């Protein structure tokens, strides 16, 4: 039995935003996280559940010359299956294909994955690699926030309870090669232990630009800026990628401190980074 709550199904975003101004209002889209919370009776008493799942205006995929614009109601399955995503953001397509189970992928949405803000959320490292930004709307106005500064702590973000994530914009990365690594205890229904999403732009065998984002490694998803700048201008090679992995692990420890899992995660993250960069370099060269 779920905890008691009130339910409303607004006809458009405008109405949803008015409803979200109520204290205790909680939006629901796919429900794969919220219904679990309702069953565990973990929400403050008698919330108002605002059902967004029928709002077609939040369910879109558009493309401009330099950007992919994604509606928050796109499901993981839709993103994994979309030729536009496979082509323009292959890291995101790969990440979505691995979320939970087929049933979860059919219901769970991109917006929900972002706003729920699990440190291990699968879509987040690819979004950071693409310098994504989020459009947040409330009854009072609209603002944009970079994905990189959106996540405060595990399950905590900059979004206010009266705001709705209405668009996710990804920068297209032309000429980049991509690499994706995910460590997990089992393939289905697993929660990632470590995620690395990497992208490399090469010029005559040298790295013009490197992008590395890590998930499940620190309290929030992060871009490994120190390793990225260190890689710029260097020649691709196993030794360079190995060293970059070590730098990323050091950044993880800076962020999370030395924890019980550090002796394990430090070398493993370094290895995943090396593998992701190897993959990215092979694609960028090819």
């Amino acid at each position, binding site marked *: *039995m*779920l*905890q*008691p*709550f*009130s*339910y*409303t*199904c607004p006809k458009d975003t405008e109405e949803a935003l008015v409803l979200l101004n*109520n*204290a*205790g209002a909680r939006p*629901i889209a796919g*429900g*794969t996280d919220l*219904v*679990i919370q*309702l*069953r565990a009776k973990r929400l403050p*008493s*008698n919330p*108002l*559940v605002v*059902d967004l*799942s*029928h709002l077609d205006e939040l369910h879109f995929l558009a493309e401009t010359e330099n950007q992919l614009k994604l509606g928050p109601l796109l499901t993981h*399955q839709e993103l994994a299956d979309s030729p536009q995503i496979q082509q323009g953001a292959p890291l995101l397509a790969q990440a979505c294909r691995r979320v*939970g*189970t*087929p*049933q*979860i992928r*059919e*219901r769970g949405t991109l917006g929900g994955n972002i706003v729920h803000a699990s440190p291990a959320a699968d879509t987040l490292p690819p979004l950071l690699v693409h310098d994504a930004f989020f459009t947040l709307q409330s009854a009072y106005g609209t603002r944009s926030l970079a994905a990189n500064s959106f996540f405060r702590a595990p399950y905590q973000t900059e979004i206010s309870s009266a705001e709705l994530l209405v668009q996710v914009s990804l920068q297209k990365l032309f000429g980049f090669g991509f690499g994706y690594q995910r460590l997990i205890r089992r*393939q*289905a*229904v697993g929660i990632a232990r470590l995620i690395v999403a990497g992208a490399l732009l090469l010029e005559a065998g040298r790295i013009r630009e490197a992008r590395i984002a890590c998930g499940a490694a620190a309290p929030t998803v992060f871009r490994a800026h120190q390793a990225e700048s260190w890689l710029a201008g260097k020649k691709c090679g196993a030794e360079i990628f190995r060293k970059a992995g070590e730098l990323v692990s050091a950044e993880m420890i800076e962020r999370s401190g030395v924890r019980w899992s550090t002796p394990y995660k430090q070398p493993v993250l370094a290895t995943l980074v090396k593998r992701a960069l190897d993959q990215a370099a092979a694609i960028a060269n090819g």
Partner: protein
Amino acid sequence: MLNPLEQTIISLQLRVNGLPVQEDVPAQMTLLEFLRQRLRLTGAKEGCGSGECGACTVLLDGRPVNACLVLAAEANDAEIRTIEGEARDGRLTPLQQAFIEHGAIQCGFCTSGMVLSAQALLERNPHPGREEIVEAIAGHLCRCTGYVQIVEAIESVAGKGS
């Protein structure tokens, strides 16, 4: 402020196994509870209640979902298929028949969900490979068969027809 004693009642309209259904349900009711308690369609089971075991799987607009994680209210206007709607006029579907022939059923708790996820796969892709089959049932736990017979049952249907 909402009155804590006030229960939102939603008037629900949907199709279940091809038939129109109209019911007033409390907001708290999940799609699984609606199917089992109101419509007495008890083929879908509640296992874990958190989207991990797949025993509650039904098809919502042709796609497999965990009915324990969907609010009944969210299924408004939807087309739901449960295991009870698969056999027609007492005749099992080729997939159901294959489950029997391959010994893909033991206790039966996972079977309705397994069959529906596999059926959805076959409707999307009539000739899936083994990997796609395994992927399609990855959201179902079976504690009896070890999965091999289930995969073989689905494969036997995947190889046939156009």
